């Protein structure tokens, strides 16, 4: 079985702080990590590999430093890693990114399952996976919490707002996974780390993947950022700490009634 996992190197957004004076993002010292949902995706791929045998390729579109993220994936157990990197990809929105990923996956050849994380924590769009599946003309299942394969039939549990759907789909398929108990990412082993150090990460350019220059980077991006701003910060409200809980509750409910909230 041939499996591709699409991953993204992201700044750890939970470490991002806002400068209280200028109200802008402080990026200095923010570590780069493998997008957490992509680790769940890789775990899902590695479980299939453990069970049925598979070749797991991790792929990422990004700047040269994204090699570090691919290396982390190799340490977890991926077999090969490809970085698709080119100045021409700069400024790509989700559609342009999906064009590059689809072109790269075509170059890899026959693929049975493509895994993605549900979304990346820096952009939070959840769009690149489905857009890639459409370019490749294959089926997709998103928000997957658990899955198994029997021959060429995949059965998944797909999360929805109030429960989950059980869906069957034939290979090839693109699966986007959520954080779930079934896909808790494994830790890299010492052996895995050593292997990762020895594994060469292939670097493919726009020309290598035969990307259509009109469909990549800024030129190939239908959406344009017109403005970036910091949302107004919430100001701390009223903290009630009366001598007794009963009094505190009464004070809160009076205030809510006054502000016409709930009551």
């Amino acid at each position, binding site marked *: 079985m041939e499996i591709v996992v699409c991953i993204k190197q992201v700044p750890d957004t939970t470490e991002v702080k806002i400068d209280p004076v200028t109200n802008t993002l402080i990026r200095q010292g923010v570590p780069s990590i493998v997008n957490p949902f992509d680790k769940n995706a890789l775990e899902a791929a590695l479980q299939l590999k453990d069970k049925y045998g598979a070749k797991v390729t991790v792929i990422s579109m990004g700047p040269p430093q994204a090699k570090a993220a691919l290396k982390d994936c190799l340490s977890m157990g991926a077999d090969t890693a490809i970085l698709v990197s080119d100045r021409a990809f700069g400024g790509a929105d989700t*559609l342009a990114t999906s064009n590059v990923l689809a072109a790269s996956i075509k170059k890899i050849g026959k693929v049975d399952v493509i895994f993605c994380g549900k979304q990346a924590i820096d952009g*939070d769009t959840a*769009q690149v996976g489905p857009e890639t599946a459409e370019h490749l003309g294959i089926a997709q299942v998103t928000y997957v919490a658990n899955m198994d394969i029997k021959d060429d039939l995949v059965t998944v549990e*797909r999360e929805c707002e109030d429960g989950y759907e059980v869906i069957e789909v034939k290979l090839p398929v693109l699966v986007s996974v959520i954080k779930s108990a079934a896909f808790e990412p494994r830790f890299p082993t010492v052996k895995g780390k050593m292997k990762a150090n020895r594994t060469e990460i292939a670097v493919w350019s726009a020309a290598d993947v035969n990307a259509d220059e009109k469909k990549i980077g*800024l030129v190939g991006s239908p959406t344009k950022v017109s*403005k970036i701003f910091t949302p107004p910060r919430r100001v701390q*409200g009223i*903290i009630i700490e009366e001598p007794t809980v009963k009094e*505190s509750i009464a004070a809160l409910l009076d205030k809510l009634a006054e502000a016409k909230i709930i009551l």
Partner: protein
Amino acid sequence: MAVIVSKEKCVGCGICETACPFGAITLQEGKAVIGETCTQCGACVEVCPVAAITREEVVTEVTMDKSQYKNIWVFIETAEGKMKNVSLELLGEGRKLADQLGQKLAGVLLGKEVAALSKDIFAAGADEVYLVEADELEHYSTDGYTTVFSDLIQAHKPSVVLVGATNNGRDLGPRIASRIGTGLTADCTDLGIDEETGMVAWTRPAFGGNIMATILCPEHRPQMGTIRPSVFKKPILDYNRCGEIIKVKSTVKWEDIRTKLIDFVKVCTTACNLEEAEIIVSGGRGLGKPENFKLIENLAEVLGASVGASRAAVDAGWKPHVSQVGQTGKTVGPKIYIACGISGAVQHLVGMSSSDVIIAINKDKDAPIFQVADYGIVGDILEVLPMITEEFKKRKAC
């Protein structure tokens, strides 16, 4: 567009380096250099004290006759024969956009035996309903809905398509955008019309809610976006309104649908549908043990609220993942969010800080949750919850 740094003017102060939300600027030999992660957002242009950075418009090839594209469409999402709240909200907001642009508002209704919903769609403000009924469309499927919706777009050419940012909406939107080859802005929290161009200005949070970005789709049509549930108010329904139903034949056959829905397992009742909830009561580690979630549920019942949980409570196995609010769970924006025994880790805050009113109950008065709360009670959650539930019950009865 391209962002250019003038080497002559740049003084190497580094202000742009810190201002760049994408970490695309580095200082090399005392001058700012723009790297490939640049998205041309212009944040650096605004902060540069010596006006060394400029953003130039690059003329993109116009291959599309945009004037052919008119009207605002809303994807009508249904569940168990009813329209989802988010579709109503989008009809209300879509009506405003349509009025501003002097265009028509249409609801796109796919399903089996769903025609009766048309009157609700008109009541919510639509002028037209595109109705496609077929057995194959009874349940949502990526392939079925993408094909029918994309064919409708190609035949009738709307200028704007609004889709709710639900799991199905976020499954469908990118698939259509990719097939049509247009831009899609994800998970918007605000919509407007860009005064200069008359285009839709899509505003959305990024970086875990730390920054907001306004996005345009200048040269492609339709302009598409998914919009987060409960950010817009539901319109007042006016059943005197009527409109035109445009019946369209389905273009999808069973063999086109590659996924097969085998079963649906309902994990929670409407009480835990967080995306659509107006009030959410959430519990965290402060509850001490799973049985104490009953106290949260009691309060939620009195208030007609849904029940959420922090990551700590979910990881401990007290609540299923569908109930989790926060970065790796759900992002919610109810009118009222009551955080009970939740300390307020940043991962939790990004999932709920867009709520209209936040009420926090926690015994530690230094807990970060109080920094975002509009109202807070310092006290033991196990003591506060039963009493506050009783008190609400009493006051609601009067």
